[in-house]
């Protein structure tokens, strides 16, 4: 079986994902309150409302408390001269391999939340899809982006 190689992403990612999880919970909380209000108007039984509240509670516990930690712990990336190797996933483990020759361009992305914690993400584009490595220290992300671009170019030259 494939070994667990590669580097972990920044631990601050947990905090960032907690925030996004909290925001998501806020939005879904609003939806659930709306649903509860409608149900209450139609005199739905109490346990219906209880179930809704339960669902929301589970979401909060998972989305804010548990999932961010697991996600950060499972994330691994390895950038080598010939390929990018990504491992991630909470419920299932996904392992993605992108040969360097297929890389078309690289982006560094930084939203307000990531910026607040001095982080940035890298998005690697092939002709078929985009692959993101989230929450790296900003200067490291910058460096990696250059490195990937350089290696992708070298790989292309060799290929031709």
């Amino acid at each position, binding site marked *: 079986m494939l070994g667990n190689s590669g580097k972990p992403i920044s631990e601050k990612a947990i905090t960032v994902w907690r925030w996004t999880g909290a925001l998501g919970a806020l939005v879904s909380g609003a939806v659930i309150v709306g649903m509860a209000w409608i149900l209450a108007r139609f005199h739905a039984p109490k346990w219906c409302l209880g179930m809704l509240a339960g669902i929301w509670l589970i979401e909060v516990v998972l989305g804010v408390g548990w999932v961010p930690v697991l996600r950060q712990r499972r994330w691994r990336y390895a950038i080598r001269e*010939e390929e990018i190797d990504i491992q991630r996933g909470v*419920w*299932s483990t996904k392992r993605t391999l992108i040969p360097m020759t297929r890389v078309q361009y690289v982006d560094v992305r930084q939203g307000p939340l990531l910026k607040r914690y001095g982080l940035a993400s890298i998005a690697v584009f092939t002709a078929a899809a985009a692959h993101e490595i989230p929450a790296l220290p900003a200067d490291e992300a910058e460096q990696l982006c250059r490195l990937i671009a350089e290696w992708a170019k070298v790989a292309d030259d060799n290929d031709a």
Partner: protein
Amino acid sequence: MTRKAKHRLHPIAIMAGVGKELKNMIAPLLVIVAAGSRHGFSWNDILVPLAALIYTLVMGVLSWVRFTYEWDDRCLVVEEGVFVRKKRSIPLERIHGISITEGIWQRIAGVVQVHVETPGNVPGEAEVILRAIARKEARALQQCVERAKNRNGHVNEPETAAHRPPSPLFTLTMKEIWIASLTSGGALGVVAALCAFLSQFSDFIPYEALVRDIQSTWNGHGRWYIALLILSILLAAYGVAIVQNMIRYASFVVRKQEDTIVIARGWLERKAVSVPVDRVQGVVIHESWLRRFFGYASVSIIHAGGALDGGPAGEVVLCPLVKKHRVVPIVQACLPEYRLDVPLSPLPRRAKSRYMLRPLYWLTIPVGVVAYMERPWGAVLLLVLPLAAWIGARRYRAAGWALSSKQLSLRSGWFRRTTVHLFKRHVQSLEIETTWWQRKKQLATISASVMPVGTYSRVVDVDEEDATSIYRWLQGERSNET
């Protein structure tokens, strides 16, 4: 060849363009007119449609006037735009593919429409349509493109093959067109289109009253009438789909001209799609269960450009319907590098129970609930469960994979068994996914993605060791090749 002067399209392009615009506009316009004239007709009601009509006509003429094209042996240059001028120059050797269509308008004037596929990530931007040019010109453009490609690739070949068209590699007989139409799933598409069409008229079809009527009929003896009505609608849709298919696939011919595969087809609308061999990203073989029963399959090629064929993006139909034993020789003739007759490795036995149980996870509860509510007859529905498990077992049997030094083949599905053959140099990325349950049984899901569509093929529950070896295969790329 010297640079030609700037050309304008044949004037019939105006009609073709305006006709197409009007076709898109007609349903909303009808709704506007109908909604307006609900309280008696007056001339004001047709003011909006009339304005739209005139606007389309004027714009059609103007855009024809402002559209020019020219090419030499290096570049195709197109200038267009009524208010904002846009000039695009496309190097001929970068053109991904060319398709030539003869719509009804073009046939009247004896011209063709040329659809040029160029590299680019934005769907609408990556193509140029020359709506009406002379057939001779279209062929000249095609030859220029081929020559430009050859010049780049290898030594300039003398034009030996270009003079006489090579013999067709594949044609469809009338009987095969008939079978292809009968066994295609197009009827569903027609029903969907019908629904979309009807929803446009929701303003003045009294659906609510209709529903009430249906309910009262349903509760009376009318059940059978309604069932009969639905059945006849479905049959009619099926008929329409058959006719559509027959028009689409009439006189289907595949030829290979040097390094380009040319696929010509269609009855009212002739269409010729050219795909350069080096743009082919993979070969897909679809076998729906019905066709498999009669010993037929269909073959498509994955094409780096957009949807030249009007099908799903990136897939061009090579053979709509073909006897299974002919698949290998045909693909061999078109794309000699691909090996289709590789033996596929089956999935490990421990995957079988997972395949059988997987449909039951989400079927059991709804089926159980319905069976309970509609008892006693609803209990018949419980038969669905063993059937689903049986289909799962068939899916397990169908799935498989094969690996050679250059090529990866993946197969999955039972209703529509799909086998995909990909070259290593075309695999954009590879993914192995393992859930907790899969890990316990040492199984993994493997998926490969190719240009331009992303994930193309996926096989669930491959042996973990095998998945790893496929992963390593792509990983050790450079060291293997050199």
